[in-house]
């Protein structure tokens, strides 16, 4: 039980490391959100579940924290992405299509 919990926490921290690497390496804001804000969600799930394995008394409060993060994380990444598109942040030259831009020009 103890070993399983600590392995879970270790996997979570490795996911954190990879996602912060993604924040550095990706070329524009949208792709940074893709690899940064959202990949950390799975890392948080792993860390909190591992801690719940390690000390079962804390499970209820860790579950509240996990639900809170699962509800707020998509909202903040959506808001940042919409603000970026509203301000016409430069998109990476690799981008092949932007349907939202085309629709805004139509209106």
């Amino acid at each position: 039980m103890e070993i399983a919990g600590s392995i879970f926490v270790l996997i979570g921290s490795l996911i954190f490391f990879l996602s912060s690497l993604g924040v550095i390496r990706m070329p524009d804001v949208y792709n940074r959100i893709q690899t940064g804000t959202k990949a950390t969600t799975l890392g948080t799930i792993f860390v909190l579940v591992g801690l719940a394995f390690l000390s079962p008394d804390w499970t209820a409060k860790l579950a509240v924290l996990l639900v809170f993060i699962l509800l707020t994380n998509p909202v903040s990444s959506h808001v940042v992405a919409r603000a970026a598109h509203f301000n016409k942040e430069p998109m990476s030259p690799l981008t092949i299509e932007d349907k939202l831009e085309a629709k805004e020009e139509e209106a």
Partner: protein
Amino acid sequence: MADKILFIAAGISLLSIFIALLRFIKGPSVLDRVVAFDVISIIAISVICILAFLLRRFIYVDVALVYGLLSFLGVLVVARYYERGL
């Protein structure tokens, strides 16, 4: 045994906070910095929870909860302001 592995995990998490901090310093626009701040605060929540286990203090989980609430509001306010003013 478990404490040692958790110590290593906290170290890796702090290293990734440092890497995200590089983007926070560099990031050409404000929104890049907001994304980096969001990543840093989510990792910090987990680091606080790991510390709470290492020090055996249950009350530190409350600190993580309040920190998550405040950082979410901060990201929301900055993005909202950047979109169309408050």
